[in-house]
């Protein structure tokens, strides 16, 4: 019976991509308590920038870096123009702004040649050819690169938030903006930085996704929604939670596709099963697996 280990491995692979995509959510949430519905669109933007560059002959890796840099700046710009005014507004309004933004970016991407239709990357030399096989499951080099990239970035950000002064400052801002200002923290700069970092990770996720499944606006942007159960399951403000949540959702999806689908007529249970588990987990742990419990002392 080698199906189970294979399903688990495949779950981990896709899960680490989810985790990477989720990281951007968490970065923003952790510092500003904003949930970014436009994250999928930023992921798509990053992927298409990289793609457009490779189309013009730029080396794949350089194109990827430039894309990350661009979305870094884009994140900053979005914060500056749209989110900064929303500081102090109710959470639902801020969420809705990001929903609006997702729509705006969608529209803007439709103004490029990449809005409709489907494209795929010219695979760089490093990622072509035979990957490795685990428990009889062949994994492509792209997948392996994706997992490594995801784990690397996630590790770096975990360290950053727990140990660096800037990371602590970012958490402080999320905790109490006014108090953070009172000690001279520029809340604006912290937000801008969070958005920028989220943008950067989004491009990374976008490029990997693009390599794995091709580039369509709908597909890339759709990840923004997919990542939702991931961050909620892991706990919205936890980088570790993003990793674990991503892996769990990836594995759950695969287990349900591997076993449940055979039982349920029509199948397609991978679309709903993670959500059902998510609700059950939330009922037991209302702040997700690793989320910070609100301190409520009356």
């Amino acid at each position: 019976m080698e199906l189970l280990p294979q399903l688990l491995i495949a779950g981990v692979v896709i899960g680490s991509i989810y985790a990477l995509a989720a990281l951007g959510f968490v970065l923003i949430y952790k510092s500003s308590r904003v949930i970014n519905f436009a994250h999928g669109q930023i992921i798509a933007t990053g992927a298409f920038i990289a793609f457009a560059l490779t189309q013009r002959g730029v080396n794949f890796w350089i194109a990827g870096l430039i894309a990350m840099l661009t979305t870094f700046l884009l994140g900053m710009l979005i914060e500056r123009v749209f989110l900064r005014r929303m500081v102090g507004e109710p959470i639902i309004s801020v969420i809705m702004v990001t929903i609006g933004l997702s729509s705006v970016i969608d529209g803007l991407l439709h103004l490029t040649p990449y809005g409709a239709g489907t494209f795929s990357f010219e695979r760089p030399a490093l990622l072509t050819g035979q990957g490795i096989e685990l428990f009889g499951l062949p994994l492509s080099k792209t997948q392996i690169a994706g997992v490594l990239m995801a784990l690397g970035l996630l590790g770096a950000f975990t360290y950053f938030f727990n140990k660096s002064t800037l990371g602590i400052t970012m958490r402080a801002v999320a905790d109490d903006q006014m108090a953070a200002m009172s000690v001279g923290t520029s809340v604006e700069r912290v937000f801008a930085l969070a958005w920028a970092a989220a943008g950067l990770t989004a491009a990374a996720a976008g490029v990997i996704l693009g390599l794995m499944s091709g580039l369509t606006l709908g597909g890339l942007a759709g990840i923004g929604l997919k990542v939702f159960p991931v961050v909620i399951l892991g706990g919205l403000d936890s980088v570790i939670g993003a990793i674990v949540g991503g892996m769990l959702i990836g594995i759950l999806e695969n287990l349900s596709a591997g076993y449940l689908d055979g039982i349920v007529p029509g199948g397609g249970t991978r679309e709903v099963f993670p959500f059902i588990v998510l609700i059950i987990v939330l009922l037991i742990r209302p702040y997700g697996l690793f989320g910070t419990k609100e301190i409520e002392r009356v």
Partner: protein
Amino acid sequence: MTLSSPQPVPTPPPRAAPGTDDLTVNNVEVVYHDIIQVLRGVSLTVRAGQVTSLLGTNGAGKTTTLRAISGLLKPENGKIREGTITFGGKTLSAIGGTEVVKAGVVQVPEGRRVFKHLSVEENLRAGAILGRGDWHADLERIYTYFPKLPALRHKQAGYTSGGEQQMIAIGRALMAHPRVLLLDEPSLGLAPLLVAEIFDNVRRINREEGLSVLVVEQNANIALRNSDYGYVMENGRIVMEGLSAQLASNPDVKEFYLGVTEGGARKSFKDVKSYKRRKRWM
């Protein structure tokens, strides 16, 4: 009660002309939401190296005054409409909160507002201005002032007691190496022993580091005892000022802020002046 009554405002004792290290608030008017005027021409000076206290009734505008100085009005939708605030050659009223902190003026907010989800040590680190100085050394310095804190360094600040939170808040502010510390009701909700301890510490830091302090207090007793100079605020105006000892002997201050009768005896709360109100309770 208003103190701006017939009672003549005592002439302030002679003081030297303000130096550049004095924080001066000059005729400041503040409005919230563009319509609610709260400060109506407030002027005061925080002398370099001195502890200055600011007393006043609820809603007089004390917190607002501190916010005006520290640049924290904006998030509350407030504005300085008139007047200037200067310190160390800089016009604080013209710069943002971050710059004010860099200029050396740091506020400890009302109600302490520690970062609840951060550990005590992280709270302190969050106070360090980014990229300035060695936070390790500063941490040790804070721990010498508040020896209770090291034991708590990894505890979540949200679960520490009121007094500990006040120490964390002050310590956090000190991490930025301020030259003027603005304290908003540090005694709020603290047990008597702790109030004394906090003020002892403030006094000590003031002496050892030459730190100027502006403290807003409701506990006029302890504030006047631990300050050099004092102001009394009513309805958005400074209505009285003087050396702390002088203020403490002012009959009005005695009655309304210190709760001492003419004769110097403490009034009992039991026989409070019910006569002042119409009783209409049922």
